């Protein structure tokens, strides 16, 4: 049993080492900073700058987090504190069902529903009424955008966050709530000042889990995000996240020299970003606990 645990733990290291080994040819011929901060991606001309993709990943994940986190925290509070047991028994399985829908199905739905919604409704509205806000510039809106990718990602990470957050809130012992009511707190005060404070670490863990899933989600995002390797200046601009780059070009990566190294380097960068994010979140959680 120790062996299997060690094996699972070592798998991440093994994968990272393998990716690094395959990226070596590229890193040898261009410096690592030129690859990570380079702004031009043109493999046929020998330019392999991953900058636009890292920024693209950040944009789409940020939009997804901004949409999903408040929604999911409120939903989990409702499910844990307010919902009647019958309501909870219907809603929870429905939400868990969302987690089981394949990525490609989400992508097809988003391409059919979200993209036209943005192109025909949200875009023109933003162009007419929200011109002043820099991040909502909607001059050239095809619907394939950071916003579309963010919305579909938000829908995909909701079940993850709600599931964990609701469990965490329910795990707060009833004694805490009783004590709070006993000193005269209202229900809302109990929830905000007692339950959530007690469950904060767990809630943050739920959010981190959701965001980790968002960083790596590939198919659904690539079908609606526009896949243009340029820095987005508004949520209505297209972007090109790292997983989409790898999935789109995997079939042809043997045809140009260094292309396969570049794609595997992109995979390595994505792995490092996810690991870094998880480690940082863990540090925050640990420090929160020790205080």
């Amino acid at each position, binding site marked *: 049993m120790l062996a299997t645990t060690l094996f699972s733990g070592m798998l991440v290291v093994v994968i990272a080492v393998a990716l690094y080994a395959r990226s070596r040819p590229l890193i040898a011929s261009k410096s690592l900073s030129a690859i990570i901060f380079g702004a031009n991606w043109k493999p046929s001309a020998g330019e392999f700058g991953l900058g636009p993709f890292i920024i693209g990943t950040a944009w789409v994940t940020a939009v997804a987090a901004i949409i999903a986190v408040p929604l999911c925290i409120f939903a989990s509070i409702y499910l844990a504190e307010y919902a009647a047991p019958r309501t909870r028994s219907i809603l929870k399985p429905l939400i868990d069902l969302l987690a089981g829908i394949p990525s490609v199905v989400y*992508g097809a739905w988003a391409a059919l529903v979200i993209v036209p919604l943005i192109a025909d409704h949200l875009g023109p509205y933003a162009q007419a009424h929200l011109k002043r806000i820099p991040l909502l510039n909607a001059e050239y809106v095809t619907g394939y955008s950071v916003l579309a990718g963010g919305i579909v990602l938000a829908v995909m990470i909701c079940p993850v966050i709600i599931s964990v957050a609701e469990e965490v809130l329910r795990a707060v012992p009833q004694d805490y709530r009783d004590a709070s009511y006993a000193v005269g707190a209202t229900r809302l005060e109990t929830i905000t000042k007692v339950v959530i404070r007690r469950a904060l670490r767990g809630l943050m863990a739920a959010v981190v889990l959701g965001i980790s899933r968002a960083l790596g989600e590939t198919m659904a995002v690539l079908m609606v995000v526009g896949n243009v390797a340029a820095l987005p200046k508004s949520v209505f601009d297209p972007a090109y996240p790292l997983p989409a780059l790898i999935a*789109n070009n995997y*079939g042809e990566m043997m045809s140009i020299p260094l292309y396969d190294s570049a794609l595997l380097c992109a995979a390595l960068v994505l792995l490092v970003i996810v690991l870094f994010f998880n480690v940082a979140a863990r540090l925050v959680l640990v420090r929160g606990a020790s205080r």
Partner: protein
Amino acid sequence: MIKRTTIAAVLAALTVTSVIASQPVRAAELSGSLSLSGAWAIYPLAVKWGAAFQKLYPKVKMDISAGGAGKGMADALVGAVDIGMVSREVDRTERAKGALPILIVKDGVFPTVSVRNPAVKRIVAKGMSRKTLQDICIKGTIVNWRAVGGRSAPIHVYTRSDACGAASAWAATLGRYKQDDLKGIGVYGDPGLLAAVRRDPLGMGYNNLSYVFSGDKVASGIVIVPIDANNNGKVDADERIDSREKAYKAVASGRYPGARREFFVTKGKPNTLARAFIEFALSDAGTKVLRDVGGYVPLSKSEKSEQLRKIK
């Protein structure tokens, strides 16, 4: 007196031998396994060919997988498969590594706009020259439909996000360009591109022959942009492509700018089994399978014999 068992044994041996001997002897009783991998564009056709080939030679085991033209080329060059399916032109560095391209089928890419496009009347009447298409899709110097005869509205250029033969064929149609040079929003897959252009009145994209036609007519909601290949400012009869039959004719004639050639690639000359499969694909039986699948254009007789000569 010869024992009865001996007579029975000899009779049995004679029967078995004559049964074996009376089997029709095929020129080569083919057996073994044949593997193919590569382009998505050729995959459906290869699967049908494989099934028909296996009917003819039941002892042969077919192993066909997709994975993209690049994978097909890479697999063929390292010997991981017998035949690589490559839906684009083979370049010099690949030939230098030993790739032998065998032209197997022709296809075409067709530029598309929505039926609700602001300039659709003029586009259908006058077509678009290669230079105009270059300016829109590669150089980005034309960005408004006003420049092509419609009302003022931005041109939403769409292209394929996945590395594919259709995109490299479209880039090659516009000049000596590669897929990287194509500007526009990247949409995944042929059907995705079609849906994007159909939905967006300001959109412009391109599709493979098998996707741009539904039945014999052009798919609903889109219009094929006639390419004014001879730059005479109007759409000649052979430049107007509004049915599947016309598309087949245009590609087969060799004069359609967006025609693409798709290849089987072997490392050096193909082995016996691979040669038999390629000969089957180029035979009349193979062409019948091709026509049944639909969406592909067969080679002419002279092209077929030239390819057969290559692999002898």
